[in-house]
């Protein structure tokens, strides 16, 4: 326990750095990002011809921005059911890596409790969690649920708002809404790199990852691009750190 200065005038807040409520609070800075991406997803899904009920189901049981954008685009393009599902499988294989990276922090929990944490894991909540772990060296289960559930509810609300308003917004790109997703990734990357001060190694790994992602995406497929870039660039980072 760290010695705190005498500011604890709120007894409930004392020693609650790892509480559910703290997780909710730590999610707040990402909410507008979620809102704009979720709103954009809702608009795109609506313009792809999906009903409000279908959009609600998408956000509730799929709950993955990139997968929802892909599903909407491929449904509008008349792709087959299996084609859509296989594409989404490849895109979401990256979650294997995120889930694996978080696993050391939750190894004391039962598999079922790990399942509950993993079920709502996203790029964004992962980014917030890994950044927090760099700061305090551990991640509490309650804090993680606070973070995950806040993000989840906000996402569903944003999707539905986008779906309703999507009836009037015919051109989401005109408003720059399609840049919400990359801007969020940029923010998460910068925050991650700045929080751990391994600048040279991190920038080298990031640069290699960019080159491989672009190369493989052009030569093979964009989903393989992300997977190959992640595996190769992380391995190079690991080896380089050993040399130092």
């Amino acid at each position, binding site marked *: 326990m760290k010695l705190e200065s005498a500011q604890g005038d709120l007894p409930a807040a004392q020693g609650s750095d790892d509480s559910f409520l703290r997780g909710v609070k730590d999610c707040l800075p990402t909410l507008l990002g979620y809102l704009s991406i979720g709103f954009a997803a809702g608009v795109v899904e609506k313009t792809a011809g999906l009903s409000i009920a279908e959009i609600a189901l998408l956000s509730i049981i799929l709950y993955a921005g990139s997968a929802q954008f892909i599903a909407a685009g491929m449904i509008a393009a008349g792709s087959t059911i299996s084609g*859509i599902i296989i594409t989404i499988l490849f895109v979401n294989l990256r979650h294997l890596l995120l889930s694996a990276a978080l696993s050391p922090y939750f190894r004391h929990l039962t598999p079922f409790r790990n399942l509950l944490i993993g079920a709502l894991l996203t790029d964004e909540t992962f*980014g917030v969690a890994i950044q927090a772990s760099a700061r305090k060296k551990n991640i509490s289960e309650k804090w993680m649920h606070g973070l995950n559930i806040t993000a989840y509810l906000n996402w569903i609300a944003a999707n539905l708002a986008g779906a309703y308003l999507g009836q009037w917004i015919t051109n989401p790109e005109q408003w720059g809404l399609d840049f919400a997703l990359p*801007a969020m990734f940029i923010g998460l990357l910068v925050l991650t790199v700045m929080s751990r001060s391994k600048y040279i190694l991190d920038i080298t790994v990031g640069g290699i990852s960019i080159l491989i992602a672009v190369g493989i995406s052009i030569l093979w497929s964009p989903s393989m691009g992300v997977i190959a870039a992640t595996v190769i660039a992380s391995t190079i980072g690991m080896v380089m750190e050993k040399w130092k």
Partner: protein
Amino acid sequence: MEVRPDIFLIIVGAALVTFIPRVVPLMLLSRITIPEWGMRWLNYVPVAVMSALIAQELFIEDGRFQTLSANVELIAAVPTFWIAVKTRSLLGTVITGILSLMLLRLLF
């Protein structure tokens, strides 16, 4: 307010292939001790994944390389990065990104 059967199948199938990669490593890897080199490897995964996703958003369009001269997304990424480094605010970064691209599309 209806859910078509084929759309329902797509949603359930997509949800399943999204759910499994999310939960399996957390459920299994917590049973096994990860060696030191494995932890070091996992340390670089976030930076590598996010860099790859950003690269795809900025440079790839329909599986092809986007020409640099006509790439407004790439230009919009410059102020977005700058604000991220200066403010360390996710919210400010997202707003800057959206506004930058909106303005660039108005201008060009």
